[in-house]
């Protein structure tokens, strides 16, 4: 009887330790989502973007583009203190894994307020996005970002569902040299040919555009960029 009791006690003790160990291990999920809490705190658990004009959506953006942005922040080509600090301790391998996570997320787009603008500005925005301004050497957004403006795999981001504040801030930061990338930096070339009014117009037109039913990036090779771009593999 005493032996049985002793055995029971031992079994109970083992079970308790095992379950304590299990609960301790389960306390921290071994998932990428858990590991990248620093990213999702601002960009949303699925990379749906922050509730503001500053923390952009990452979900569904081509992985090559996302890796490039992290590398540009690390190399000081693209400037934003918080992101430069965040990516500094990461390796390229880890960046690829994080980028693949967000690229694979498929969540609905949020709608953003659009600033009121004049019909003339809207027409100018549409012209720049769809046809460009050949007289000033400005290619259409669609020439690179795809006719549906949903981006092109693996390196060109979509321009749909982005808030006005974000798009205009990015175009502005190319002009002030707080956003750049590997040479030849064709977005810097394009923005250099835009006026302030052009930046507002094209940002407003892009922001007011309804998100298309299929938001996935177009397949690789489906556009022939009119400029030589370092981000697309062109050399200087």
């Amino acid at each position, binding site marked *: 009887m005493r032996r049985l009791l002793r055995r029971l006690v031992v079994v109970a003790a083992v079970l308790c330790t095992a379950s304590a160990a299990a609960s301790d291990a389960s306390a921290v999920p071994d998932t990428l989502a858990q590991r990248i809490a*620093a990213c999702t705190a601002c960009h949303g658990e699925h990379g749906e973007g922050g509730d503001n004009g500053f923390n952009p959506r990452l979900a569904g953006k081509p992985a090559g583009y996302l890796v490039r942005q992290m590398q540009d922040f690390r190399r000081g080509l693209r400037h934003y203190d918080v992101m430069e600090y965040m990516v500094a301790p990461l390796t390229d391998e880890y960046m690829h894994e994080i980028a693949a996570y967000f690229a694979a997320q498929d969540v609905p787009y949020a709608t953003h307020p659009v600033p009121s603008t004049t019909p003339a500005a809207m027409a100018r925005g549409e012209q720049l996005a769809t046809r460009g301004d050949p007289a000033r050497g400005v290619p259409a957004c669609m020439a690179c970002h795809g006719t549906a403006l949903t981006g092109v795999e693996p390196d060109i981001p979509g321009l749909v569902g982005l808030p006005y504040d974000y798009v205009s801030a990015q175009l502005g930061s190319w002009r002030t040299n707080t956003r750049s990338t590997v040479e030849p930096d064709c977005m810097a070339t394009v923005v250099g040919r835009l006026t302030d009014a052009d930046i507002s117009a094209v940002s407003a037109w892009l922001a007011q555009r309804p998100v298309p039913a299929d938001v996935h990036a177009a397949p690789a090779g489906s556009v022939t960029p009119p400029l030589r771009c370092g981000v697309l593999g062109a050399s200087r």
Partner: protein
Amino acid sequence: MKTLLRAIAALSLFFSVSLALADDAVERGRYLATAGDCAACHTSRNGAPYAGGRVLGTPFGAIPAPNLTPDHATGIGAWHADDFYRAMHSGVGHDGTSLYPVFPFTSYTKVTRADTDAIFAYLRSLPAVKAPAIDNTLRWPYRMRSMMAAWRVLFFDEGEFRPDPKRSAAWNRGAYLVEGLGHCNECHTRRDSFGAPVTDPLVTGGIVPVQNWYAPDLSMARHGGLEGWTEADVVALLKTGRSQKGTAFGPMADVVLRSTQHMTDADLAAMATYLASLPERAPPKPRESAVDARELAQRGAKVYAARCATCHADDGRGKGDAYPPLDGNGSVTDPTGINAIRMVLSGGFAPATPGNPRPYSMPPFSQTLDDDDAAAVVTYIRQAWSNKAASVSPGDVRAYRSTPGT
């Protein structure tokens, strides 16, 4: 004919041996340059390795690091090994003028001639990059290099490391790395108003100028900044960026990434052996907590339960390898509170290393916690469990709200 063949064989043997020796020196130099973390300053963020250009902020103005590649006009192409030794050992540049102590010759003076020669051989083996020096922006009077003569008399003790025969080989190697090549004391100490690091005693902790992080005291004995750490914990932190006692963040994460993770286990163990021999420190002077510290901590307890406890646990012990403990963590209880404030506001990733390739991370709370709540939760973690550090104020939080520079 046979003689000729023999001569050729002998000659080729001679050349391959001397080439192998030269390769050895270059390889040894590469390792030593990594251990000395030369690239941290002499490589700019988007620049060629060792081509300089990173601008180092100091309280006296900004000083760009020069080009160390063997370009003749803009690098060290015209230097001789003697010149390099003189720079490292005496803090004197190629043109005979005194170097500024942002270049840590105060520590490098302890590096042996054999090691400076190896580092020089390695630098000479790099591709030459044309990268002209950038002018410093030191303010008057600091830009007068002649002032350095007085500074040197007051603050510079020239001399190679002298091994202590009473200590083990490992201890001596560790001392050489910590005090000399690794130049740990350039950050882990206070600097006086002349920018001179306090050297007696060494590595007692201090605020890293301009970057504004607190580099902790490195004593593992009673009242030391690493009290309770084992030598294995020290090695783990230097090798992988994390340990059971704490995780490397801020400037130390950069040191792990560029330098210590690449060092041999024997060298890391030697550094730990040396640090373990550092004496106990005086008990911290009780810094009065603010009058409202109790209320602040009570408010902080609620913030902690809501925001922090999931990862760092109610008892502050952290969670396994993922999240470091806050109880007994010297970065939480540092005399200034800077590190805890910075971590709460900026969060971030532990350094990604082969030993921890997919690090966990902490969300930045700068956008979700106001100065009052951040001060409350930092005060709470500095005084909860076994921690007994002074409170921090909302004003302290405001002072360090900016994102740390990279």
